[in-house]
């Protein structure tokens, strides 16, 4: 009897322990989620040049350790947004909250003296920023691989200039890095170098990076979140992981009779909404499996030429949202 009670007591105790542990784990997870702090908050920012609205009611949030992309065509307002973030231009309305403003490293175009070499240019900024450690200049130059350069800045290639810009932005080990079109005018090798450097800075030094570029495919490799800006407005903020998840839910089908295929699929599965795209059909899968669709097509004597998952690239999302053409690539 006593043993039975002891056993029950032991089980109750064990149950309590497990419950407490699970609550503790949930609390830790909740705390972890909350600890991803917003480092930049932009609220309803408007910037006008005369009658021209360069930024129109722009709102966005950037979290700690994000690599946040800002994409848009020329004159969309990317540089203006960066300049307002850096207080280089005055706002007409709205507000911005930047955590630890002094801790921003940035570049928005070449800002160096053409007659000085890499070391002297960075040394100039080190002195100006009041950084006492003299080895800081060499540290940032080593990070970008320009520590042995003795030529003056005017003799540098585009890639070297961009890397020097990043080096200056890294002075003082900032927590937030703002890079405006860092891959502009650079050859593919240089683009890869800068891309790798950005990822390295984010992963090794835990930097939050805000980056803009016209080369969407390049941004795609590095960012985890991005915003599409068009005519001064943020059309949408996109999470890269959401795009990848949704990519698995769309298939691209090419048959010998496209119209008939569309008719049959709509007739058989009412919830299905295939749309014509290039030579085939784009089919959002929803609850339907791809083999089910393949079966229906084949059973009706239609020849199935091609069937593949669609990978929606950043470019696709961009063109879709800015009313451009969708570009389909194989997942």
């Amino acid at each position, binding site marked *: 009897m006593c043993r039975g009670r002891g056993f029950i007591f032991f089980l109750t105790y064990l149950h309590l322990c497990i419950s407490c542990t699970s609550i503790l784990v949930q609390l830790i997870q909740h705390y972890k989620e909350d600890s991803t702090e917003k480092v930049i908050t932009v609220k309803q920012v408007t910037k006008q040049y005369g009658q021209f609205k360069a930024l129109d009611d722009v709102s966005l949030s950037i979290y700690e350790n994000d690599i946040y992309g800002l994409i848009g065509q*020329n004159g969309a307002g990317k540089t203006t947004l960066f*300049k307002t973030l850096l207080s280089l231009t005055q706002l007409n309305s709205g507000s911005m909250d930047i955590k630890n403003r002094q801790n921003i490293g940035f570049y928005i175009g070449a*800002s160096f003296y053409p*007659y000085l070499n890499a070391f002297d240019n960075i040394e*100039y900024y080190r002195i100006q920023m009041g950084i006492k450690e003299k080895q800081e200049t060499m540290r940032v130059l080593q990070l970008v691989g320009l520590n042995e350069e003795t030529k003056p800045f005017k003799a540098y290639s585009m890639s070297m200039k961009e890397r020097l810009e990043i080096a200056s932005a890294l002075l003082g080990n900032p927590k937030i890095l703002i890079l405006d079109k860092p891959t502009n005018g650079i050859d593919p090798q240089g683009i890869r170098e800068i891309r790798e450097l950005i990822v390295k800075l984010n992963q090794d030094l835990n930097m939050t990076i805000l980056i803009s570029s016209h080369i969407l495919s390049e941004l795609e490799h590095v960012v985890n979140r991005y915003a599409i800006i068009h005519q001064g407005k943020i059309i949408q903020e996109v999470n890269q992981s959401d795009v990848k998840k949704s990519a698995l839910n769309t298939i691209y089908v090419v048959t010998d009779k496209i119209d008939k295929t569309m008719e049959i699929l709509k007739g058989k599965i009412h919830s299905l909404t295939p749309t014509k795209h290039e030579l085939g059909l784009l089919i959002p899968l929803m609850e339907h499996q791809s083999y089910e669709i393949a079966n229906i097509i084949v059973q009706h004597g239609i020849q199935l030429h091609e069937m593949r998952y669609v990978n929606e690239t950043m470019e696709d999302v961009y063109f879709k949202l800015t009313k451009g053409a969708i570009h389909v690539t194989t997942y």
Partner: protein
Amino acid sequence: MLQHIKASIFRIYKKKSMRYYLVFLSLGFIGVHLIMKTQVNESSFYVIGTQAMLSLSTLFIGTYLFGVIYSDNINSKTDLVSIGTGHKRSTLILSRFVTSVLVVLVIVILKLLHVLILPVVLGYGFSSSLYILLIQQVMLEGLKIVAYMVLASIVLTGLKKILLRRPLIWYSLQEL
């Protein structure tokens, strides 16, 4: 502000053309007096020649220093970096002014060394009043250079404001 001044002095010190320019002016000054001495060996001519060259130097040195201290920063957009990292515009303007005063002070010292040592080397017998006259002239020209640079920077700021009144032009320039 001190760090801005230190950085500017470092940059100016590292600018090779600045050194070449000063050497050129120094050699020019000495050369002209050497040639003059072969023609007319009189101390009054030395004074007249020096005064004429000092007057001209305001324009030559002033224009060059304005380029080094003010225009270089505008052309290379380095001020944008300073403002973007939270430095006040007023601090930048003030530090630039102090830098120009310091650089002019160095130029004045160099000029004084030339103006006062050269007559001794060339063997002119100068009265103390002539020395005082030359020192006054050098100081005055130094002040003129500072005033010249301040005025030029005001004109430049004014031009920028005129551009700002035409927002689309300014916007296009910024986008570039």
